[in-house]
């Protein structure tokens, strides 16, 4: 469904080209296999801060990354997750070389242009991003509390991508240089060019721009060194926040991306809370009207996973009432599994998502981004075929067994986010989470 050709250059850069001539645009998508899980204690947030620095100019183009691309009619962006950092441009076909040249210059020649002034400016920007997206947003600190509790201290998913404020403040220009040398080199990158391009000439353009860049030291795999059986007992925590309605988050460790049971957990998310016919939406929002919303999702990550159910209490309702209903439905699923029709509905939803995701060639989750994701995580850009098959093969028994083994009440983290001054509205026995 996505024809592609893949090469590996001598410097280690993996190159994927995918042709699609329906729209006169080309997508450049570049993944570096580095994310917040590669950070060390005391320097959390560095991978994301570094992503910002990549837009501030490089040795042969030291005036900011956006202007020449916006001049060419491009859209562009980048993002950082726990596992990878990606950068992309969507350009009119005739501006492909410009985008490749700029990407190669910041890969090969970033550091000579990286000044203290730029570093300090972007550190301020990131601290303001943190204020806007996390600190000053309702429920904005919940993810930090959850990650810290679900993944034990020492686990590389123990912290979030935005990092701790004091770590971001403590980061130095030297840290940025070191980070670049360790992780930003062709051998740790995957480049996809897609869209209205000719495969051979696209490869030629890539080689002209990237062949000269030196490879770097191999990046050691990050291992989930936290105890896989943690948490061993239920953890109940609470946050007071500037919110109107209390919200309950229930979270568990779960299979890693493409690991055994990962696809089944995605389907469980659909069965539990995918749309208005899902079990928890019906039970909590439609029938008993205890909650205003509910969601459930498998968070598949490269070396570990987590599964989270969250629901917001309707006015006048308490989180213990929500917990009782959710726990009851989980018990039912662990005993009997979902109905066949529920499983089929979940598979149909996910199948449709696969097709919808093929509509765009560039940008986040466009075809170029997916080819890189499959390449980085499995070594095979064409892994979508196997990925899809996983869902079709899932059975009612699989989902029953996954519920029974993964979503145990005695191994869950229960986070109550309650209005400031209403700690008594958290689940009984909750202790205050330490986040800021």
């Amino acid at each position: 469904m996505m024809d592609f050709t893949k090469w590996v250059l001598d410097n280690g850069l993996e190159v994927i080209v995918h042709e699609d001539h329906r729209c006169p645009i080309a997508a450049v998508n570049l993944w570096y296999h580095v994310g917040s899980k590669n950070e060390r204690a005391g320097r959390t947030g560095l991978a994301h801060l570094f992503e910002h620095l990549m837009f501030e100019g490089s040795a042969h183009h030291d005036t900011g990354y956006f202007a020449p691309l916006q001049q060419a009619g491009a859209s562009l962006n980048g993002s950082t997750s726990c596992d990878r950092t990606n950068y992309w441009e969507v350009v009119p076909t005739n501006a492909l070389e410009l985008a490749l040249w700029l990407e190669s210059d910041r890969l090969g020649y970033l550091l000579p242009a990286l000044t203290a002034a730029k570093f300090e400016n972007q550190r301020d920007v990131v601290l303001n991003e943190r204020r806007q997206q996390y600190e000053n947003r309702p429920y904005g600190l919940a993810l930090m509390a959850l990650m810290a509790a679900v993944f034990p201290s020492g686990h590389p998913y123990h912290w979030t991508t935005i990092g701790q404020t004091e770590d971001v403040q403590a980061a130095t220009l030297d840290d940025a240089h070191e980070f670049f040398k360790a992780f930003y080199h062709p051998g740790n990158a995957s480049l996809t060019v897609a869209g209205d391009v000719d495969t051979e000439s696209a490869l030629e353009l890539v080689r002209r721009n990237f062949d000269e860049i030196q490879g770097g030291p191999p990046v050691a795999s990050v291992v989930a060194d936290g105890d896989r059986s943690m948490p061993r007992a239920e953890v109940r925590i609470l946050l007071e926040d500037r919110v109107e309605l209390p919200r309950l988050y229930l979270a568990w460790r779960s299979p890693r991306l493409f690991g055994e049971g990962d696809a089944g957990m995605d389907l469980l998310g659909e069965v539990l809370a995918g749309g208005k016919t899902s079990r928890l939406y019906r039970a909590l929002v439609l029938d008993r009207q205890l909650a205003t919303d509910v969601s459930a999702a498998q968070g598949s990550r490269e070396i570990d996973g987590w599964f989270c159910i969250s629901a917001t209490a309707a006015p006048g309702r308490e989180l213990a009432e929500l917990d009782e209903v959710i726990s009851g439905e989980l018990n039912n699923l662990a005993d009997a599994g979902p109905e066949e029709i529920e499983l089929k509905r979940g598979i149909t939803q996910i199948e449709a998502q696969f097709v919808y995701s093929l509509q765009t060639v560039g940008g986040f989750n466009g075809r170029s981004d997916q080819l890189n994701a499959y390449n980085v995580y499995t070594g095979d850009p064409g892994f979508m075929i196997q990925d899809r098959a996983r869902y079709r093969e899932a059975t009612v028994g699989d989902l029953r067994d996954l519920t029974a083994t993964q979503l145990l009440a005695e191994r869950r983290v229960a986070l109550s986010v309650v209005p400031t001054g209403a700690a008594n509205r958290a689940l009984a026995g909750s202790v205050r989470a330490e986040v800021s």
Partner: protein
Amino acid sequence: MPRFPVVRDGRLSNGLALKIAEHPGPPVVTFRLMMPVGSASDPPGSPGLAALTADLLDEGNADRTGLEVHAALDAIGARLGTEVSADATVISLTTLSRYASEGLALLADIVARPRFDDADVDRVRALRRSRLRQMRSAPSAVADRVFIETVYPEHPYGHLGVGTDESLAGFTRADVFGFHQDAYQLGIATLIASGALTHDQFVASAEGSFGKLTVRQPTKGAVAEPMCFNDVRALATNVVLVDRPGAVQSELRVGHVAAARQTPDYHALRVLNTVLGGQFVSRLNQVLREEKGYTYGVHTVFDCRRAPGPFTFQGSVQADATVESIREVLGQMVSIGGDRPVVPAELDLAQAALTRGFARGFETAGQVVRGIGQLVLHELPEDSYDRFVPEVEAVDIGGVTAAAKAHLHADRATIVVVGPAEVVGPGLDALGLGEVILVDALTDGE
């Protein structure tokens, strides 16, 4: 230069207006039923009725309960969307091409034959009241509400689509049923389709469902006519502060009533906005983010509607930089039409960004039907997208300066700050823009 996909106009046998653009690609189709009835058509004293009615459309009809509607949508992997803006209500549905007929049949029932059971009205109304309540603690939602209420006093645009708690509390099934009967009628609707089917396949599918519905006009007076909107009285500068004690940032809105989509200055405004605050390398983002580091990012927009819509600067800045940021914004609103006009390099960059990036706006069927919907809503000529590039290229520096003078008014801007009064209050007073009006975040529209 790439052209917008060919759009073919037609009518179904019952008279419903139809616009179709074939769009080969992945086996996906998107439908958009566009009605030029939005929250500006909320009856006086009933803010939120249009949005509540739209929200209830998928809660069941003559043949199916709400759960059955959603089970049927799920069975074809469909995505249903409901958008209520000030000017329009749009119900959209995306599905796999092979389910186009089933999708259209479901969409037709949703749009035209809702059952509006009392219990569903009560439940959905309660959910919307909860959402309104949660918006009180979201700084961006508070800022949006206070801004629009201040800029458009006693005007059809002067409230958010969600309405107010007081009005929501009073709505009954009869209100919703009545609004649907009076306003949401197919006589003013357009069905727009695009995706991986042929024109004839689209028409045949639509005839089988939408073609069987009764097409009639809305009740006279039920739909707001932009021409009848009262003039917005010219405001003096207005500073409104919503206290959020201890907040680490201030959520800002600065702006005023500006232009309608039909304005002859539309393309000049697009260029002007791109230079001022419409893209990453705009003047305001460069200063406030890339030089000062006060914010994660800011932007400006001319929201051109059927009647004159607002120009808005928006951003969230660290609390101690609030007043300096406001000063910068007001200063730049003046200078771009005065002593710092757009220079050739800026004009060139803005025009190139707008014109060369045009093609990627029509990559998916969803983007195509959205684009067609804008033409229909604003009664624009069919070749508007093909004329966009030459129109933008024809804008010169004098045109941008003239547009700035005509449509940017720092001297009567409304400034909304949702932030910590103890930090920002003294500086706001010192700005000398007149009395700072304090508003409580816990009220909604009263």
